[in-house]
């Protein structure tokens, strides 16, 4: 029975492999680690380790998954490491030009906040990223109009 099941499993995975081919991107344990992080925010370091490993393996095999640098960067930002975050956001944009608008928007906001912070120190707010507030305000008012 066990043998049969194993055979069946092998057959299934062989068929699936033949059909979908090897996964294009290396996600590592992104999925369970993200879920664990949602359930328990104190699992942030587990999520971080999962991201780091997925990046490492992805870089090695040339199968780096989209969003991994950015997710890690955002995690670093939430831990107060702004320089590390900006670095990773830039890496994401470099690896995946599709993310350029989003990443450069976030980086611009962050670096502007930083330079403003130097001039008027009192005004600096922790590490909040404000992505194009106008655009989001636009979405809100559009909802009001639509409904």
């Amino acid at each position, binding site marked *: 029975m066990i043998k049969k099941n194993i055979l069946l499993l092998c057959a299934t995975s062989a068929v699936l492999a033949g059909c979908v081919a090897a996964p*294009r991107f290396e996600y590592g344990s*992104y999925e*369970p680690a993200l879920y664990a992080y949602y359930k328990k925010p104190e699992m942030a370091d587990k999520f971080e380790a999962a991201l780091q490993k997925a990046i490492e393996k992805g870089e090695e095999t040339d199968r780096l998954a989209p969003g991994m640098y950015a*997710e890690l960067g955002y995690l670093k930002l939430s831990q107060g490491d702004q320089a590390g975050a900006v670095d990773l956001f830039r890496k994401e944009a470099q690896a995946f030009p599709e*993310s350029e*608008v989003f990443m450069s928007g976030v980086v611009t906001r962050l670096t502007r906040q930083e330079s403003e912070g130097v001039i008027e120190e009192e005004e600096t707010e922790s590490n909040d990223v404000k992505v194009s507030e106008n655009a*989001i305000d636009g979405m809100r008012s559009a909802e009001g109009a639509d409904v």
Partner: protein
Amino acid sequence: MSFLYKIGSLKCVASLVALSTVLAGCVAAGPQPKDYSDFRAENPKSILVLPVLNNSGAVEAPEFFLSTVSQPFAQRGYYVFPANMVKSLLEDEGMSDPALLYSADTRRLAPIFGCDTALYLTIERWESQYVVIATSTNVTFKYELRSCKSGESLWAHTQQLSYSPQASSSGNPLADLIAQAIIAAIEKGAPNYMPLARQANALAAGTAGQGIPAGPYLPDVYQMDLQQFPAGEASE
């Protein structure tokens, strides 16, 4: 005793049936293929996964769903935006209510994210039935890709799935039955729906004629799969 053996072989039949469903989706489409004219015309390269709209009573469902949806869509050859970062940013901006987000114009996402498409995810049903030997969970997920350029729908899919976790077989039917009952009891207490969500999302993204065509990150098949993902009625 032969009754118990029957259950065992039934299980095998069930997995064979499941296997052939997968094969059917892979080799030849079962249901009528969708019309991919709009999708093909727009030729999107990136997907912005939006926070999940939950119409079911299961509070934990969106987290299972969101953490497993990026990968299968990316593996189809697309840039998928960092789902958790996007979700957190939207929450920081006071857009934590998916219902509001889902009623807004998709085009307004473009200046912020530079997305080609946004993926709208709705959980319509997520119900678990506890029936001693196996807990079965029935789900219905809705997926819709809307263009960030035109706001129009490029692809929509409804995925239904019935899922019950299986204990690995020990060769002793009675022991298997007990193991199955224990698993069912565990499922009732602290269920792990990771495999369920994975399976549903993989089927939704990858089934020929139903999912999404291969994207630019799959250069070997990109735009070569017109037969599996046809653009409208075959032109005469």
